[in-house]
């Protein structure tokens, strides 16, 4: 087990280096930089001042020189300064990551809370009307474009019905740490989480349903039934344990998807997290932040897949590799 994890971790290093190289080349291939078009907002700025800014942020060097500098600093844990936000990138990310993680965590929780029971029901009573209803929902959610659905949710539940706030993460008037603060934060989370979760369930439901249908005719299940194990126990002890394997395996990937999916959620619900920061930084050509963010989600992908493998090898001793 340990060797497995160590090996996976070691493979991550070249993967991340390669990723950073690609990001850097692509980022620098974007036209313009952070001071392009400064005339729009700061018509008093002089040429010397602009040059000074480019010089300080190393924007005049060729990309490989910039990459070298960046790499050297990144190894020391320094991700540079954001030009737009004028603070260290690390601090900037730290300030925003909380919201995104909160959002991702609850979305995942709600996704499983909906998907696992539905998948179980659909699998156990397959081809009944309940199953057809669930599969129908699955098709619809799979086909619905996320941003359309999220906008619709926002329109109906915030604008028309007024049940939930239209944006932000918390009402500033709430006393931090108080109960109403927690409630208000939750209220701000409901719509983004639901919009994400309701559309994310299809994979889990489908896998679970198929697996249960497959499993329930397998020999060991038949044996259990023959021993006289009650039907409920057959499902909870024998079938579920097996069928949850692929779901557990996908956990890592789900986390990865949530982090990149946060871009849409956060834009639509004006929820200030990493996704919004990412768009803002690309529009402002805030290279240091863009690079750091892509690296972060890249790392999430690599770590997520590793997590999936580890979980899988814990729940399923058959595939444990040493």
């Amino acid at each position, binding site marked *: 087990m340990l060797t497995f994890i160590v090996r996976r971790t070691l493979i991550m290093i070249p993967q991340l280096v390669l990723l950073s190289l690609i990001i850097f080349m692509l980022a620098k291939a*974007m*036209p*313009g*930089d952070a001071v*392009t*078009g*400064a*005339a*729009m*907002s*700061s*018509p*008093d*700025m*002089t*040429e010397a*001042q*602009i040059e*000074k*800014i480019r010089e*300080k942020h190393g924007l005049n060097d060729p990309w490989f020189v910039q990459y070298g500098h960046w790499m050297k600093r990144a190894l020391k844990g320094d991700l540079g*300064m954001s030009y*737009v*936000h*004028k*603070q*260290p990138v690390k*601090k900037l990310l730290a*300030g*925003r990551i909380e919201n995104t993680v909160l959002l991702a965590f609850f979305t995942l929780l709600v996704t499983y809370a909906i998907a696992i029971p539905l998948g179980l029901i659909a699998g156990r009573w397959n081809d009944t009307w309940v199953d057809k209803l669930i599969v129908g929902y699955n098709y619809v959610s799979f086909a619905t474009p996320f941003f359309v659905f999220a906008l619709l949710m*926002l329109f109906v539940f*915030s*604008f028309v019905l*007024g049940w939930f706030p*239209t*944006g*932000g*993460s*918390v*009402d*500033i*008037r709430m006393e931090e740490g108080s109960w109403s603060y927690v409630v208000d934060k939750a209220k701000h989370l409901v719509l983004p989480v639901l919009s994400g979760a309701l559309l994310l369930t299809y994979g889990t439901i489908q896998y679970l349903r198929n697996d249960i249908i497959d499993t329930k005719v397998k020999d060991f299940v038949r044996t259990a039934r023959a021993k006289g194990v009650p039907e409920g126990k057959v499902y909870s002890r024998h079938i579920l344990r097996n069928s949850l394997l692929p779901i557990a395996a996908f956990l890592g990937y789900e986390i990865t998807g949530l982090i990149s999916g946060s871009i849409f959620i956060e*834009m639509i619900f*004006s929820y*200030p997290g990493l996704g*919004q*920061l990412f*768009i*803002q930084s690309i*529009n402002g*050509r805030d290279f240091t932040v863009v690079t750091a963010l892509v690296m972060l989600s890249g790392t999430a992908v690599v770590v997520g897949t590793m997590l999936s493998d580890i979980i899988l090898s814990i729940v399923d001793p058959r595939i444990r590799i040493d």
Partner: protein
Amino acid sequence: MMWKTIYIVGIILLLAACKQSGDPGEVQVANFPLSVSNEAPALENGELTYGLVADEPFEGTLNRVFYSGQPDAEIMQFFDESLLATDEDGVISNDGAASYHLSEDNKTITLKIKDGVTWHDGEPVKASDLLYTYELLGHPDYTGSRYTFVVSSIVGMSDYHEGKTDKIAGIKVFDDRTISITFEQATPSILSGIWTAPTPRHYVGDVTTDEMTMDELVSSEKIRTAPIGFGPFKVSKIVPGESVLLERNEHYWRGRPALQRIVVKVVSTASILKALEKGEVDIASIPVDQYDNARKVDEIEILADIDTSYSYIGFKLGKWDAKKKENVLNPNALLANKTIRQAMWHAMDNESIGKMLYKGLRFPATTLIVPVFKTYHDAGNEGRPYDPEKARALLDRAGYTDRDGDGFREDPEGKPFVLTFASMASGESADLIAQYYIQNWADVGLNVQLLDGRLHEFHSFYERVQKDDPAIDLFQAAWGTGSDPDPEGLWGRSAVFNYTRYTSDKNDELLKKGTSEKAFDTDYRVAVYNEWQRLMVDEVPAAPTVYRYALIGVNRRVVNYSIDGNSPNRYVWRWGVSQ
């Protein structure tokens, strides 16, 4: 200081604009008020919500020396001030927290801070706090955008900026409340561009000693989440990027603010009208394209004034010489002949664009000094009104005629004359506008094509315009003019932002005169700038297209709110709510 918007009574100018376009009977826009109509008494402990209309979180660099985003500036107006107030022309006055007087030779300005002006932590605002602002602006490590002409022309500033000395020779602190600043040359730009926003040295920390570095200061929580000022409200809490809670400053030097608290929060452009309608937000700007819907919202009143920014068509006439640091004309530019440029301006139907796409909230521009500068904008100058006949006549006269009968004119040598037009992809109407101008020009026989056949994203557009891409003959852009009417920064010979790269001796001369010592005499300065505006209408390095109205939606419960540069209600401390 340049962020300061100057508000003016727009109606007269609007009517003038109508008249010029040959349509005297029609008033395009309803008479916008500048102040709210509710005259009920303000609640004793009212609370108001101010909307920052943006699709991104605010950056939260809440300090005048370092900030860059407009939302940050909007937040700062509630808790921070400049020592000197400005009048409706953007010129400093003695109504602020300090008074000033100019020396005989107009080179030295002395500020005296009034009694009882204190920072939110109770410390008095000191002369050395203003000195600190200058020490930051000129600091060798400073990389913000505000080391501008008005700062760099202080005596001894360049030595300080280069790190040769740690004292700015031209700034003298006499006592805790008196400070004088001496400039190398006397120029009226001082009166509209001088920096008088102090920085609380005792609170944020000192970079001139070894206490902290510039980077540490900029990213300090004392600027970002717990800033102080001496304005009417104190910052009590900030949710970064999202909202700010402000409480009344009982010790505000002007008096006790009417409101108990103000909440400032970011609202996306898509939801701003709903937020106003539901009363979630009391005051917020309204995007022009939502004007039609905004009119139907009964809960709000719409105020409007003319904006400092304008759109223009720039003609590429040369390039930037990076060695000489100045603009150089290219005599072989396709548009080097000014008659064509004049014709192109006459061919553009800006009025229709303003009416059709912006409900009259944008209207034909006439000169390169915006009407916001009431004194300096030459209202008598009609620019070049829409007149396709005149455009054709001008082109004929210049020898550009259609010789092969394809509907497009050839150049005097008979070769095809095709112009390439760069325009930005910004907003829904960008494409329509670009196509409309191209049609306008085609109507007078000019073959104008979009660069690469499409619009360009902000950065690629400016990247190519800035670098004088030879493929571009003309481009459409827009910008704000700042608080100083001096056009040097945008149209001067050594201005890197002068994207047309136009230069002429007459232009240099007039721009110089406009900021000379003699220009302290307003009449003289007006005469110089009128002449400059005429020169620009004659030479047409750029054709201004439309001036703009900026709209503000205000809930009907708000009292004592005004955007009139003369009204005492323009100051935040007067604002209140009646229910």
